[in-house]
């Protein structure tokens, strides 16, 4: 342990929704907390920006759906209103280069293929009901389910190419990963945490049901106001030394961040605490040096749970012109750069905004296209669906999450075969005084803002419980002298 610049009860590493909720819960329990955030902002994978034309765009997480009660409570608390994702009119399906209108959840141009998709999704959802969102490795067939990819399962479960393609589109939109990159067990556990795969891909009645007036980052900004100077921005955690109090070692952690000084120079800043909550995805946590080293399974997890690949693009127009043509703005495509598109216009229709995801392998390979090349292809695809007007937006913005050093991708970690059964328990199991939060660790709505909030509450509860125990034994009491 080195001499600390500050001493608190708990350090929280990461000021996304999970870290903010962790900190808030701990502060409400009477603990002294500091939150170290690598970026110059809070919100993590949720980022709301205003374009030069005044359009509000959510560059990351943006939706709220039924049963996401924590997020709804937070929005209510901060008087942030929601409105339904625009759904009126026909959706569009792009299949084999042709555009077909449809209503409801699944495209209907290839009715046999669509019926097969529904049957396949039902099989997947029924299987998901058998898999615990918190302990998927306990399923009696966990080994077998974790040995195959979603793609391998769909290959045998579906009869048609249409069903395989639609499941692939769903995987890309939900995970930022192709079905060939995902363990079936991981997909089942993840889907069950949000109810079912059908819940995850639905707009009305599902994960994409509503949006936040003014953007999804607002509650994070308000939480940060609430936490005030407990949050230190521009302070990436680089190393952690820790002990569990055994064999004469001091209990607790010393967390070193590279803090930006007033002179613009980064220098180490050390915070000593009794507990640390790491509130970030495993792949980002993997960049922090731990002394002593973390257990092997946790180190492997940090390498074997890579982030999905996603770029979110927004094309901004004067008005949502597609609505006049009776179109909802939603598109499902079997190929191309944008496999899923939504109407992301503000509630009052003051701008028209079409939002699409570039995901998975296409996202990675599109790096060589450059921003201009991606914009050209995206606008061609938007024009194919919505006509020539779509090729002439007043603005086109993109957010490449793979280029964000403190996300490394998005929207969520994607685990391939064998990871959950071997390393899954290390997702949440504390290591000495170190606890784990982040939406990847959530037992409900894993991968979503709701999951981030739930994980923060759970990690904070773990910390409070252990500190209460410690206080009772007198080994790590929370007396005032330990607080700054």
């Amino acid at each position: 342990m080195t001499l600390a610049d500050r001493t608190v009860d708990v350090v929280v590493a990461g000021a996304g929704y999970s870290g903010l909720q962790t900190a808030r819960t701990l502060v409400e329990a009477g603990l002294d907390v500091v939150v170290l955030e690598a970026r110059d902002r809070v919100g993590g994978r949720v980022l709301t920006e205003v374009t030069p034309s005044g359009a509000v765009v959510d560059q990351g997480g943006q939706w709220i759906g039924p049963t996401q009660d924590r997020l709804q409570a937070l929005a209510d608390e901060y008087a942030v209103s929601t409105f339904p994702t625009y759904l009126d009119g026909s959706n569009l399906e792009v299949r084999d280069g042709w555009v077909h209108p449809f209503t409801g959840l699944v495209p209907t141009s290839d009715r046999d293929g669509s019926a097969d998709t529904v049957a396949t999704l039902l099989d997947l959802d029924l299987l998901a009901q058998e898999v615990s969102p918190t302990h998927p490795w306990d399923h009696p067939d966990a080994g077998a389910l974790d040995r195959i990819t979603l793609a391998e399962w769909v290959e045998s479960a579906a009869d048609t190419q249409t069903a395989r393609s639609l499941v692939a589109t769903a995987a890309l939109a939900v995970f930022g990963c192709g079905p060939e990159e995902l363990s079936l067990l991981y997909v089942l556990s993840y889907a069950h945490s949000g109810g079912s795969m059908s819940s995850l891909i639905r707009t009305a009645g599902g994960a994409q049901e509503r949006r936040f007036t003014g953007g999804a980052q607002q509650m994070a900004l308000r939480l940060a106001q609430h936490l005030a100077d407990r949050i230190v921005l521009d302070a990436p955690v680089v190393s952690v030394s820790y002990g569990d109090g055994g064999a004469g070692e001091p209990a607790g952690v010393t967390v070193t961040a590279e803090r930006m000084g007033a002179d613009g120079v980064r220098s180490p800043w050390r915070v000593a605490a009794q507990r640390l909550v790491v509130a970030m995805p495993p792949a980002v946590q993997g960049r922090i040096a731990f002394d002593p080293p973390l257990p092997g399974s946790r180190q492997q997890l940090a390498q074997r749970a890579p982030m999905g690949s996603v770029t979110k693009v927004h094309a901004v127009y004067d008005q949502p012109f597609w609505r006049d043509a009776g179109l909802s703005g939603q598109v499902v495509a079997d190929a191309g750069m944008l496999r899923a598109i939504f109407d992301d216009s503000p509630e009052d229709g003051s701008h028209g905004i079409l939002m699409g995801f570039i995901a998975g392998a296409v996202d990675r390979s599109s790096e060589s296209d450059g921003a201009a090349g991606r914009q050209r292809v995206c606008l061609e695809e938007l024009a194919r669906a919505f006509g020539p007007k779509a090729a002439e937006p007043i603005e086109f913005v993109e957010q490449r999450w793979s280029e964000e050093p403190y996300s490394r991708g998005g929207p969520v970690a994607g685990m391939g075969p064998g990871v959950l059964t071997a390393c899954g328990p290390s997702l949440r199991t504390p290591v000495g005084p170190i606890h784990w939060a982040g939406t990847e660790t959530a037992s409900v709505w894993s991968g979503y803002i709701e999951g981030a909030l739930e994980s923060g509450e759970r990690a904070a509860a773990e910390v409070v419980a252990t500190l209460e125990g410690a206080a009772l034994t007198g080994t790590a009491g929370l007396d005032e002298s330990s607080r700054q």
Partner: protein
Amino acid sequence: MATAEEIAEAYADWQERCNVNTRLARMLRGWDRTVHLVATDTGEGFTIAVSASVLSDLRSGLVDQPDLVVSATSEDFADLFWGDLNPSEKYLSGEIVLAGSSEDVMRLDAMSMVAFLDQ
């Protein structure tokens, strides 16, 4: 508004199509359930049983303890059974309401959609 006779006629057509659909038979395997249909505008009730992947005849009245209850207007029931109505669209808009366990709702939602698509 559809009369009970019109609903029964539409159902008989739907039942015949469903019971020869091999994909549906596979989906319904092992799923034996009693389903009540409640017409919200006329107040009339009907009962269907699913057994051994086969849909029973439509019975008038709410018979036996249901596993699932479907509520919709009489006209929506008739349109659904004639195949003129996309059930997924109606569930999502809340015009057709399903009550039952999440698994049963999931299955009925999916089977009605497959019946619609495969007609």
